């Protein structure tokens, strides 16, 4: 873990993507954090009415709880900015979504071209998706083993700072 005010670049010189999290438990060695969930529309003034944000219950956030080494003596309730290499984020997205999708589509298109029947294409899509998920699982294990999926503590969040403040024009 990096000290407060850590570099905004990873060890390979690539920029870090920032996210916000709140400390929910901490001891001398480890801090447990929950990410502040964003919505796919980025949130807006009418978020309370549209219901996108209300779907994020406590159970969902608990499932996303993660641990960091508590070198900076984080305390419960503090908001912090955490970072991950943008390269790692794109690789993680590709592993979770692109690999299963491409396997599924490849299998479905191949079955359709070979048989010309929708039933076979659907069965092949399911088989391709299953194979893609297995490949994704193996690849995610490798990313995890290399430490690519571990976020870094960057700094404490400023009062009122939100994800949409960053880079906003």
């Amino acid at each position, binding site marked *: 873990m990096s000290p407060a005010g850590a570099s905004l670049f990873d060890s390979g010189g690539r920029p870090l993507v920032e996210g916000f999290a709140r400390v929910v438990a901490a001891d001398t060695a480890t801090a447990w954090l929950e*990410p502040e969930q964003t919505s796919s529309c980025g949130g807006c003034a009418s978020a309370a009415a549209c219901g996108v944000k209300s779907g994020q219950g406590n159970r969902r956030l608990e499932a996303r709880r*993660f641990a960091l080494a508590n070198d900076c003596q984080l305390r419960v309730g503090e908001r912090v900015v*955490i970072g*991950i290499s943008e390269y790692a984020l794109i690789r993680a997205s590709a592993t979770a979504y692109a690999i299963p999708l491409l396997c599924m*589509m490849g299998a479905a298109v191949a079955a359709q071209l070979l048989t010309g029947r929708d039933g076979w294409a659907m069965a092949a899509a399911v088989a391709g998706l299953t194979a893609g998920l297995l490949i994704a699982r193996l690849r995610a294990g490798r990313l*995890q083993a290399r430490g690519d999926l571990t976020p870094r503590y960057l700094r404490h969040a400023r009062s009122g700072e939100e994800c949409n403040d960053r880079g906003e*024009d």
Partner: protein
Amino acid sequence: MQELILLVVGTALVNNVVLARFLGLCSFMGVTTKIDTAVGLGMATTFVMTVSSMIAWGVETFLLVPHDLAYLRTVTFILVIAAVVQFTESVVRKVSPSLFRTLGIYLPLITTNCAVLGIPLLNVHDKFNFIQSMLNGFGAALGFSMILAIFAGLRERLALAAVPRLFMGPPIGFITASLLALAFMGFSGIHTN
């Protein structure tokens, strides 16, 4: 095969879901402040949109049409999409909890918007078969992701530009989007009488 490739390219570029059909504008404006999150969200939306198109085709073909329930199409498709989003989240969590946590910090995992509903409805309207529905969903999502990435790059530059105070934020974003839409109109060709 050529027909399938043309379907994907046409849906992604000519009938772009954001710039030609004006769907998914909330995500388009909301998450395009950073190019990395735009690319990540684009991948998530591509997965959800493609799978939703496939399952919605199955529901339409094997449930709604045989039982004469076409009037329930919109509600049923909303349920299908909600189920696909939940399924995606659960599967990512099962496949790799660490991947799920990492993506959960930086990307909105609930990736649904009006474009995700619009494409399955357009598939029904155009009477596509299974593979055409899947590729139409994929092409639309590809176009959506491409526009998210392009627009995020433009907004990162706009953040450094001297924009008049009245136009800062969404106004200059929409003006830029309209210019981008004009550029994409070029893909549909110029009609002369």
